[in-house]
């Protein structure tokens, strides 16, 4: 085995038989994001992987304790700007449960529309990165371009392209513009047509199948016990979707399927979000049909206070189950807010899946876990 001298003069520790090489994948690595995986490889086989998050930790939970309920809204969506409505949704629900605030019916539909659009924006972003991680540059450009269709819709409704600050306790900030419905239906139809194109170039491409099939298999038992969630859990065959099992707002009035796959490999984890996008388009169209007219926001007094109490609310965001544990002590500021984000729960699955995989499988496994470093660090 070769002993390499690192630039800082650190001698790489070879293992006893001198076969193990330690690689630090990240945080300045094109295949990691703001995140580090300390990987030990024996030739091309990964023998150990140690996730090291925390490079973009900004103490959201502590920040929450210094701001009042409304002021928490803009900064809480910062960890996940690609799905900013999704990460705000359970906070708003929890505030409403603690304060027992009634939400107008129209606002519930608008929230679902925006949450689904945002989830799709995230999934396209995720798919684009998955494409480039596997060396497929076209699959990077297409979803990134088509994402514009949805960002355009979100911008039309909320006035901002990524950080909307749109949900508030008691409804949403503003009503949808009049032209939103027609435009949304037109663009979603076209987007559906674009989604069909992805299949030929990516999902049925034999080279993509080679890269992802039977790679990083996560059994249903392991998936549940490791606490992974969302598309990763459903790809392992567990039918677990918060929208279905614990319908919040008006999801119980909508008709949609929960997509599951049995295999639990990277391919299934890449395919489930893709199929879910069709369901999401379906949900948005149903919402646009069923949406009643009326007010969209319950008027609250300035600087509202909550009663003493706690709430645990969860929603199905783009990456899976996103939960907030909120404790209120009766002051205008929350006593404790805990974000249980799906990305953080995926970390546990990472060493489990990477051990024994090949180094070339690392991006395929790592990114199929729907991991978003900024969200995990909060």
């Amino acid at each position: 085995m070769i002993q390499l001298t690192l630039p800082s003069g650190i001698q790489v520790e070879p293992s006893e038989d001198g076969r193990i090489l330690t690689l630090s994948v990240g945080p300045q690595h094109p295949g990691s994001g703001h995140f580090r995986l300390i990987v030990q490889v024996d030739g091309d086989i990964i023998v150990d992987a140690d996730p090291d998050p925390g490079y973009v930790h900004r103490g959201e939970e502590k920040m929450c304790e210094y701001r009042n309920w409304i002021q928490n809204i803009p900064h809480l969506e910062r960890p996940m700007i690609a799905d900013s409505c999704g990460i705000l949704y359970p906070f708003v629900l929890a505030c409403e449960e603690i304060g027992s605030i009634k939400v107008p019916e129209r606002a519930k539909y608008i929230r679902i529309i925006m949450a689904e659009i945002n989830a799709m924006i995230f999934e396209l972003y995720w798919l684009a990165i998955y494409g480039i991680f596997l060396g497929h540059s076209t699959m990077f450009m297409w979803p990134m371009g088509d994402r514009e269709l949805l960002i355009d819709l979100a911008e039309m409704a909320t006035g901002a392209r990524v950080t909307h600050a749109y949900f508030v306790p008691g409804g949403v900030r503003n009503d949808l513009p009049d032209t939103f419905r027609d435009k949304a239906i037109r663009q979603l139809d076209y987007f559906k047509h674009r989604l069909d194109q992805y299949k030929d170039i990516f999902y049925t491409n034999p080279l993509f199948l080679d890269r992802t099939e039977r790679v990083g298999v996560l059994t249903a038992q392991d998936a549940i016990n490791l606490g992974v969630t969302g598309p990763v859990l459903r790809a392992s065959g567990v039918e677990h979707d918060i929208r279905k099992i614990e319908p919040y707002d008006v999801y119980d009035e909508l008709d949609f399927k929960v997509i599951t796959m049995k295999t639990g490999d990277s391919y299934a984890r890449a395919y489930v979000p893709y199929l879910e996008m069709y369901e999401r388009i379906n949900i948005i169209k149903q919402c646009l049909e069923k949406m009643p007219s009326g007010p969209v926001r319950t008027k609250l007094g300035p600087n509202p206070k909550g009663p003493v109490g706690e709430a645990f609310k969860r929603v199905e965001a783009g990456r899976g189950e996103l939960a907030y544990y909120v404790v209120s002590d009766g002051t205008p500021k929350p006593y404790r807010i805990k974000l249980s984000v799906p990305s953080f729960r995926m970390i546990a699955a990472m060493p489990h899946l990477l051990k024994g995989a090949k180094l070339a499988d690392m991006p395929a496994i790592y990114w199929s876990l729907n991991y978003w470093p900024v969200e995990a660090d909060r």
Partner: protein
Amino acid sequence: MSSEGKQPEQSSQSKEAVAKVEIPPVEKGIVDKITTKFGGKAVLAYAKPRRIRFNIKPEDAIEFARFLNDEVGFDQPISVAGTDYPKDNVIEVIYHIGCCTVPEYRSMVFAFALKLPRDNPKTPTLIPVYRGVEYHERETFEMLGVIFEDHPKLQRLLLPEDWADIPPLRKDFNIKGR
């Protein structure tokens, strides 16, 4: 939250009041199962629709979690949160456990809280039961200084390596300028 000045009396849930409120049948079944097994060791904090919370002691934690996982069917760790209560001199570690397998429990979140003394917070790790709590417990360790005994790797996770202050989510840690 409601507006200032109109705080509804019924929603301020002190723990004794909630226990008397009507518990829905499915939740009642779970609560009965737990109370018959553990009796006085597990205290019911509240049982709202879809949300149940028990307060238990740290020494019973592993046994309780194992019973919850194997017998009751709550098998998916969702979150581990720690809350600091300097007034009562306790740190509360609360595990939220969901369920993926039993159909009628799937919509529920089971929470159990451990009240630990603030000066020496120690509790056994629940990794043998729920593997997924490993990183949640590490986060709780560094954010609140709770020591999870027998945890395989109780080290820094999110904070910088040169963090030399009290754990930041304790209430006596203050952000500068605030």
